[in-house]
Each structure stands twice: as structure tokens, then as C-alpha cells.
């Protein structure tokens, strides 16, 4: 189902956002998510200890303010990096409108790319199997361009981005039915 996929993505984004420092890479499967949740607990405990130190004014762990600031930044960066683990963005039938839930994730990608102008990215647009192949090619391109525009607005240079549309030619999931189609209407963001 489209909705459940998107929900999953939101839960992912939120749990990863909370999490300081766990940067998983590669496929996001259900197992990864469970592993992540465990890590969230660990990390939160740790950061709570640091916070207590701060308020008490006693630095039993021996961290300087600078070190704490560094740790905080590292945690923030890790959180942003974790958001960037989400690289597939889904769309409704015959639309190229970016779903509100993924804006946060796209912003994270945008900030990273803007900070790393040497990093190139490829946006691959896809459609589900319904309708005509050539219209779907154009639709896939429109989706990829919608993501491209969003990134550019967030400071990414046009020269860092390459778009291609495969239309309905490269489904993520083979078969038919609404849940399959929902998984296939997508843009995949690929760091090069």
C-alpha cells in the first residue's frame, strides 16, 4: 500500500532523526529498522548523561565545552546523515508532487550536497506499469525533475545533478496490484 510505505518512511525518518550517531548504510529492510531502534535507546541514554553533566556544572566525564559542542555537532550530522539513508521517494498515480513527509529527508540531502559541491547525484524517475510507456517516460522525468528542483532550491548546484527517466521499464517490484504499483512510482536518488 502506498500509505503504509510512506508511513514506514516517516517512522524511519523520525527514528533515525532522534538517533544520534547511528548511521546505517545500504538497504533499509525491516531488520535494519529493528536494529536501529535498539541503537536509539543506547544513544539517548548516553546523551542524557552528558546533559546532566552540563546542568550540574561538573564534568565528571572530563569533557570540555568544546568537546561537548563537537559531540553535539557530530550527533546532529549523524542524524542528518541517517536521514540521507532514505533515497527512494514515492509519488501518487500520474503526479509528480513531492509528498510532505519526504521534504525533511530531501532537505538533508540538499544540505549535504550543497556542502559538498564535488559530490554528484543521479535522480532516476520511474512510473508504475499502468498507462503508456512513452507518457510514463515523460512522467518519470517530471518526477525526477521535481526532486531536482527541490534540491536546487535547497542550495544544490544544477551541475551536481543528473536526471534520467526509465518510465515503467525498471519496476522496483515485479507484478501488479496497488501495493506493487505504489512501490514502483518513485524517484531513486543515487550518489555517484
Amino acid at each position, binding site marked *: 500500500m502506498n500509505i503504509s510505505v510512506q508511513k514506514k518512511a516517516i517512522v524511519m525518518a523520525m527514528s533515525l532523526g532522534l538517533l544520534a550517531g547511528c548511521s546505517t548504510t545500504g538497504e533499509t529492510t525491516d531488520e535494519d529498522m529493528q536494529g536501529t531502534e535498539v541503537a536509539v535507546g543506547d544513544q539517548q541514554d548516553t546523551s542524557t548523561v552528558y546533559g546532566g553533566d552540563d546542568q550540574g556544572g561538573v564534568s565528571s566525564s572530563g569533557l570540555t565545552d568544546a568537546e561537548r559542542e563537537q559531540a553535539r555537532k557530530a550527533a546532529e550530522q549523524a542524524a542528518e546523515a541517517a536521514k540521507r539513508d532514505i533515497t527512494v521517494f514515492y509519488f501518487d498515480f*500520474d503526479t509528480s508532487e513531492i509528498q510532505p513527509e519526504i521534504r525533511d529527508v530531501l532537505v538533508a540531502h540538499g544540505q549535504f550536497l550543497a556542502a559538498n559541491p564535488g559530490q554528484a547525484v543521479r535522480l532516476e524517475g520511474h512510473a508504475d*506499469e*499502468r*498507462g*503508456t*510507456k*512513452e*507518457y510514463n*517516460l*515523460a*512522467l518519470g*522525468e*517530471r518526477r525526477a*525533475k521535481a526532486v531536482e528542483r527541490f534540491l536546487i532550491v535547497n542550495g544544490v548546484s544544477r551541475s551536481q545533478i543528473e*536526471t*534520467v*527517466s*526509465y*518510465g515503467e*521499464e*525498471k519496476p522496483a517490484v515485479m*507484478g*501488479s496490484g496497488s501495493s506493487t504499483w505504489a512501490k514502483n512510482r518513485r524517484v531513486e536518488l543515487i550518489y555517484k
Partner: protein
Amino acid sequence: MARIDLSRTPSRLAGWVHRWPSLSALLALLLFAVPGHAELLIRITEGVESAIPVAVVPFKESGDLPAGDGVSDIVRSDLTMSGEFSTLSPEKMLSLPSRGDDVFYRDWKLLGQRYLLVGEVSRQGDQLNARFELFDVNTEERLLGETANSAVGSLRTLAHHISDKVYEAITGVPGAFSTRLAYVTRQAQGGRPLYKLQVSDVDGKRASIRLESREPILSPAWSPDGRRLAYVSFETGNPAIYIHELASGRRTRIASFPGLNSAPAWSPDGRSLLVTLSKDGNAEIYRMDIASRALTRLTNHWAIDTEAMFGADGESLYFTSDRSGGPQIYVKDDFDAEPRRLTFGSRYNARPRPSGDGKYVYYVHQREGAFHIARTNLETREETVLTRTLLDESPSVSPNGRMLIYATKQDGQSVLTVITSDGGASYTLPASEGDVREPAWSPIIR
């Protein structure tokens, strides 16, 4: 019998040999007009409410003929596939005449047959000789009496030629059984898809692979002379349009602009292509002069404009645009004209394929969540949904306008289905391995 035009035959033969050297040894069709009878021609003008019963008697065979289907088996199968005929099973025949003198019309009337085809095939050296006669069972008239030759290896070419003759004698419309299909197959190999551009007879036989790629191949389109295919291939990682000369296998990449390079369609003179490019921002339709590669932009709109095709007049331009919010069919009466919207019946109508006679436009049409093939009568604007399958796409009309092939799904697999162009009888081409997609019906190759 007015159908046989002696003056035309030799040049037709020359054309075939010239154009299809790969079918080698080829067809030396020698056609003789056998004195016929009066006027004929029952013209089937509309619809195929009930298929016309035809008995194709197994041809008498002599000499060492190639193994496999016989000539009369192929003719019977062709006529059945057209959807306009029902053919009598040989087991039900009361007699098996091979020439007119042996025909007892009463037998065939009894069996409810309208037409009767008899004949024989023999081999002489490297050549097959066929002689065939077509009779109207009711009037007892002979409508056709001809001979034709082919190389031994071209038995199917010979059979399709006979099918064409029979079809035309009965319907008054040239047959399309000697034409070809181009299509793309996709199968998983080593966990990755493998795409193959193939060309076959219209019955799916004699398929040959013209291009193989791990990346998608799309939108094959026949040049008007039937010698070249234009198509889209992603073999470089990005889409590009190629022109492929079938006889030599020589390919030219003619469009590889940033963004989309898609939906090639030939102009009637074969000198230019309509293409969809997005190099100027979004999907727009251009005309490309093949020799100079010069581009003329034909649409200018923020919406998607794609899937263009010339109308029968060679001037009008049909295309898909979502400028109204969803994909719909538009027509420009000439390149400079303002587009007019043609389809209103549902929220999704795309990939127009105007018929060669200018009467209809065929397209993919969404209704109640399903995708069908529909057509609109350009004069009356009446829309008819032609298919009952659910995920239909890629309609392609036969050059005689009587049949239509499209891709649909059957048990999760893409297959090709042939229907009569008014939505009558349907026939699914025997599926090969994997998915079969993107059928394109060749022109009549003269």
C-alpha cells in the same frame, strides 16, 4: 476475375527481392492469371458480427517438402487469426479435393461453408510450386486461380502470400499476412533483465533477434518502406534514438540529447522523424530531418507533450498531452495549427495511432481503473472501447486497417493480442519466454 493484375506482379516481386535479401533465395513469385469468372467481391464493410466460414482443404503435396506446418495449415491459421473467418477443421471435411474439377459444392454447402480453397504444393529442385483456387460455394464461381513459386526455405512466405490473395479476393482489402511485426521481449537472465528487439512474421513465426541489451529497448517504429526501424535504447545508460537498417544491421544513433529521447515516429516520406525531447526543459515534440539532423520544435507547453504520430494525410499530427491535467489526445491539423483536444470520455487517453484510411484514431483509454484500447471515429467522434483485458497498451494497426495488435497482461506476463480493428475476435500470439511488449506492425512491403 478482376483481382489479378498481371502488370503489377513482376514489380511487386522485384520489390520484395530487393527489400528482403535476407529472406534469400526468395520468392520468385510467378503469378499467372487463370481465366476467371465474372465480377466478385463481397466487400465486408463493417464489423465482423459473425466470422465468414471458409474451408481450406489440405493441399495435395508431392515431392520432398520441408518438415513442419504445410502451406494450407499456415493459410488456415492466417485466416483464423484475422478474426474475420472461421475455418473448417479438416477432420470435418467430407472430401479433400485439390482442384476445381473435383469439387462437389453440395458437400461444402452441407457443411455451411461460404468459400472453399483448394490447391497443391510440389517441390522441384530448390523450388516450391503452389497452385491454388478459391471458390464461392453459393454461386459456384471460381474467384481465384493462380500459381506461385518460392524457394524451398521460404514456404511460409509462399503461404502468407496465398493468405493475402484469398483475403483480398473475399474482402476486397489487401491482406496483411506478409507483413512483419517488431516487438521487444524482456526476460530475466542471471537475475537481471535481458531485452531483445525482435522481428517476426505476423503470426509470430520466423522471429529473429535484431538487438540485445541489458538496458531497456522501447518504441520500435517501422520506416514507411519497411527497411528500417527507429527505436529508443538505454544501452549507454541514458535514452537515445537509433535508426536500424534491418538488412545490414547498421545502426545510427540520431538523438541523444540530455533528458528524454523518445517516441520516434516516421513521416510518410521516410525522411524525418517525430521525436519527444526534453532538452529545452520538459517533454516537447520535435521533427528531426534525418539527413541533416535539423530539429523543428512543434509543441511549446509546460505540460507533457509526447507520443506524436502523423495522420493519414501526412500533415496532421496526433499526440498525447496532459495540458488539461491528465493525458489526452490532441491533434494539430498542420504543424502551425493550434492543437485541438480529441478525447473527453475519461481522464486518461494516450498514445494515439491514427488509421491509414484517416477514419479512426486508436489509443490507450482508462475506464474504471482499467486500461483498454479504444478508438474514436474521427468523423462522428464516437468512441468505442475495443478490448476487455485490463492493462492494455501499445496499440498498432495493421497496414490494411483491419487488425490491431496490442500488449496486455495474461497470468502476470506481457503478451501480444491481435483483434479485429472494430474489437471483434481476439487472438493471443503464442508467448515465447518472458514478457513480449511494444508490438509494431510493419507497412505492406512492396
